[in-house]
């Protein structure tokens, strides 16, 4: 009798746990992330997480985290003292990062190639103010939210 009740209790517990299945926090990544300070604008692709992080009273910077190794990788030439990143997106190889940043009171759209450690400014045509960016995981298409003539529009760019 007792054994039956135990089995029934165990089954009920398993059912309850099953019903409550939801997203599980990846604590091995989240704990180091919390040490970055405030963080926002995540972009997740493959083993890469790009975001904008700022420690207390520090300037926001683009960070690229290798999720598999659970460590940030260097991005030489991307973060500048005179600019403020607004939005970032990464491809699944962690090779291309698209970035909208504010510099000298202007917003600009950039493409950063990690293997070249080089940024390329992408012109907004017709003129507009970029705000948010999305990069396809294959790194071939860029979608940019642009303020133009009082409307928010989406520009699509195919990258070589």
């Amino acid at each position, binding site marked *: 009798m007792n054994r039956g009740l135990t089995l029934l209790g165990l089954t009920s517990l398993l059912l309850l746990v099953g019903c409550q*299945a*939801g*997203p*599980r*926090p*990846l604590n091995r*990544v*989240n704990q180091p*992330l*919390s040490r970055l300070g*405030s*963080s*926002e*604008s*995540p*972009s*997740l*692709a*493959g083993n890469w*997480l790009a*975001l904008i992080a700022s420690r207390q009273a520090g300037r926001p910077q683009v960070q690229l985290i290798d*999720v*598999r190794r659970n460590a940030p990788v260097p991005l030489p030439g991307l973060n500048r003292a005179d600019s403020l990143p607004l939005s970032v997106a990464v491809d*699944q190889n962690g090779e291309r990062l698209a970035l909208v940043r504010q510099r000298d009171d202007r917003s600009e759209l950039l493409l950063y190639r990690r293997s070249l450690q080089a940024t*390329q400014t*992408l012109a907004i*045509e017709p003129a507009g103010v970029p705000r*948010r960016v*999305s*990069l*396809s*995981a*294959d790194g*071939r*298409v860029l*979608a*940019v*939210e*642009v303020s133009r003539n009082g*409307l*928010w*529009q*989406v*520009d*699509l*760019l*195919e*990258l*070589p």
Partner: protein
Amino acid sequence: MVRPPATTAPASTTEAALLLLLALGLAGCGLSPLRRQPAAPAGLGSESREQPALSGDGRLLATLVERGGRTTVLLQERRSGRVLPLRHLRNRQPHSSPSLSWNGRYLALLLQQGARRQAVIEDRATGRLQPLPLPAGLEPDRLSLAPDGQSLAVELIRDGRRSVQLFDLSQLLEPDRAPGLRESGGGPGAPP
């Protein structure tokens, strides 16, 4: 020792310079940065659109548009502009922060659930809406779904402070991988 005719060197130099210019020109064409697609795919006019999200393969585009005064996610084929149906999202606006998996099978987004924003995923293959309950006391503000649909990055707000956290979805969703990608690890070139 016979020196080459004096005229040879300049001619070679000129040819070399021309070849170099040609090569640079071709390289320049190769780097020609971008092909622009008209901002609004066919049939959309010039309405306001925000928060673009591309599928991993770049084939689909999700954006936010105004429909009847409510911010609504719109899913389209990027090239043709054809609008794709979403079953579960009507009457649960405003929507925000759409994010797509590789083939666009999964659309993650935030929708309004009473006074709170709720993260959900619509599975376009099965028509199922998967709620994603997040830890209490945290307000989700932005999502990024991994292209394979196996994890989700969420920008969360607690007491005005923003932080990004990752969540494992592998118990909830089948992978939505690029065609040709293997299902399991191992083999040459696989990470240790």
